[in-house]
């Protein structure tokens, strides 16, 4: 006998070894050895074809996935058809895809799986392993919609918009800042390559969605698929032309002048014209009466005739990958954590461009004879929101604002 000296510890050790081998076997058997590939968009298939049976929905989603793969390759090796002008650098896309690791030339691959896949999922569907536990849920890239960008609602973000979010992160969320990676040239390249891959996933997801719609009506040939890809790619190619520059902001040099601007902004904030208080509340703490869902949720609920507020209705979509619908809460401006950026220039962009996919719409500008806010009004509103978000000064300055308002 291996352990024949001490009558209790040998038994304990033997039990431990037995336990260890059993657990190891369980781990081996339980290991997920499936091939890593893009996940089909069953949720969208279900939302556009509610009358189909679950097997038919899965089949439809798989067909769209297969057609997309023929155009744009797999998760391990993305491709781009030669006949379509790419809005992305495919060399960087390939570098960001596939399994994590370095080759013999020490170039690192698999950046998306290293930094992003845990939350955003292998297809960029916002259904990574940890997604259900996060608030807010990770972004689903497949609609091609992004919140914090320099282009109007309905237009694609620019490459630098995505780089900006990657570098600065989103405060108060699980989206980290990869600014620390900018310390060396390799890491700057990494962030740039990741931004290209995020755009690739968004294009891929949107093409797949459009193919789903097309396939639900008729068979799709290669030329139709290419036409769909071309349309989506052109939208992305045009993104830079829609970009609005952050204004050079010259702060009012006098404190009195600034406070006057803040007071005007406060009046505008509380007016029915802007309707800010409807969501953000009178004091800007996000306690307004309007509570709504974001477009990513509405996409598979309201647009499919499902009430997201009733579990009995939306739970039927869980089997297709739906997560519990969550209210898109208006930002508490007093906390200062403005996810699109805290500078006056950032706030200006959010006001004039809105936040895509959320209930936050752009303010109406007075132009071409249409009623709305003047440039001066918008600047006053920016000053007030900026003032609110400087939370360390809230108490003292609020008294000054009241004083300025009364005067």
């Amino acid at each position, binding site marked *: 006998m*291996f*352990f*024949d*000296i*001490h*009558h*209790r*510890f040998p038994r*304990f*050790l033997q039990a*431990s070894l037995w*336990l260890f081998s059993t*657990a*190891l076997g369980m*781990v*081996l058997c339980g290991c*997920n*050895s*499936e091939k*890593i*590939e893009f*996940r089909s968009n069953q949720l969208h298939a279900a939302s556009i074809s509610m009358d189909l049976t679950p097997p038919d929905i899965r089949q439809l989603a798989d067909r769209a996935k297969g057609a997309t793969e023929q155009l744009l390759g797999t998760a391990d090796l993305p491709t781009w058809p030669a006949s379509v002008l790419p809005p992305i650098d495919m060399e960087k896309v390939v570098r960001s895809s596939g*399994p*994590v*690791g*370095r080759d*013999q030339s*020490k170039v*690192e691959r698999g950046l998306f799986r290293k*930094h992003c896949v*845990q939350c955003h999922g292998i297809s960029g569907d916002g*259904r*990574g*392993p*940890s*997604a*259900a*536990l*996060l*608030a807010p849920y990770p972004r689903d890239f497949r609609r091609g919609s992004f919140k914090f960008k320099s282009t109007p609602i309905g237009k694609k973000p620019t490459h630098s918009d995505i780089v900006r979010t990657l570098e*600065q*992160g989103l*405060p*108060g*969320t*699980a*989206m*980290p*800042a*990869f*600014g*620390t990676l900018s310390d060396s040239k*390799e890491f700057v390249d990494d962030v740039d390559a990741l931004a290209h891959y995020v755009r690739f996933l968004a294009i891929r997801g949107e093409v797949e969605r459009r193919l789903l719609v097309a396939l639900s009506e008729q068979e799709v040939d290669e030329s139709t698929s290419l036409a769909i890809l071309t349309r989506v790619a052109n939208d992305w190619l045009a993104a830079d032309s829609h970009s609005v520059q952050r204004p050079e902001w010259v702060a009012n040099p006098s404190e009195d002048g600034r406070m006057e601007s803040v007071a005007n902004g406060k009046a505008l904030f509380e007016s029915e014209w802007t309707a800010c208080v409807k969501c953000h509340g009178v004091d800007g703490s996000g306690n307004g009466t309007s509570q709504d869902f974001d477009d990513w949720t509405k996409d598979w609920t309201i647009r499919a005739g499902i009430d997201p507020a009733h579990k009995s209705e939306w739970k039927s979509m869980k089997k297709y990958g739906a*997560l519990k619908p969550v209210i898109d809460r208006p930002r*508490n401006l007093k*906390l*200062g*954590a403005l996810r699109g950026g805290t500078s006056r220039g950032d706030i200006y962009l959010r006001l004039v461009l809105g936040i895509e996919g959320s209930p936050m719409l752009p303010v109406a500008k007075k132009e071409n004879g249409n009623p709305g806010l003047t440039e001066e009004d918008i600047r006053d509103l920016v000053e007030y929101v900026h003032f609110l978000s400087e*939370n*360390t000064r809230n108490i003292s300055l609020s008294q000054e604002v009241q004083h300025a308002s009364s005067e």
Partner: protein
Amino acid sequence: MLPVNEDSSRWVYRWAMLVTLLTFPLIWLGGLVTTHDAGMAVPDWPGTFGYNLFLYPWSAWLYGPFDLFVEHGHRLLASLVGLLAICLCVVAYRNEKRTWVRNVCFLFLAAIISQGVLGGARVLLDARTAAMIHGCTGPLVFALGSFILMACSSDWRRATQDGSRIPVSRGLLRFSYLLVLMSIVQLFVGAQLRHAQPTWLPPFFTSIVHTHLLMATLITLSIFGICVLVRTDHNRRVMELRLPSNMLLIVVLAQVALGLATWVANYATPWVELTPWLANYTLQGKGFWESMIVTGHQATGSLLIVFSLWMVCRVATRTKKAEKAQPMINDTTIHQEKATELVAVGSTV
């Protein structure tokens, strides 16, 4: 039971101490490899970018990318621990009288070699599954090294030879065994979270997180239970149980704090609007402190297994005595024995 020769075991003890002390930083480095997803930072094995492991230019190692630094460092330290484990076996073979201790030393060496092979398989097959198993078995190897240390310690000798006649309750022994078992299961569950496959669906990951939290609660309660048990009835007279129970308490409290911090470092807090600081806190991707917290949680988990084993050793060596001797010894007998010992010491002086 064979007698333990103190002199012969001392060298084994020292070598086991050296190897065990080096195995802990090895666990840390392995944890950093996982945190930075650096398992494939060096694509070949056992060499490094075509070089012999030990001949890879140190400047390229130290001034290269961080993932390469961590992975190559992990391999170098693992090689050192392997070499020292061979020395431990030689020392044990020549000096250790107890056959089973020698066998455990050889088992330890085999485990370290197996770990190396498993690490190599992870690289050559590019398999995250192998990485997960490697991450699970690493702390168990560390625990095995620590067990050699415990078996060669003076406390073990005193408990098995001189014989503490104070009985320890079987409830405490059962609790201690249960704690070791739960710590190992928790290690496996945690390793699943650390090596989550990209294709996992959110409900599966969520269920593993909930299991991890449930196990953490059970382990914490068990340690509280052990701390109470060592201070009640006749267990309270066995002062040797205090240190491991106190250490367990410290480690589990640190581990719970690190666990919460790990969640925040990975996924932010769910209650961001509690304070402006939380609302404004932006996670740093692969940041230094984030990495240290996450890796520290994993390393402290392996310490929990080791301290649980330590508790088992101290309790089991004493429980056995109680079974063989009298089931219960009253206070008068203990006082009489202590008085006799004191007289004996006095006469020697």
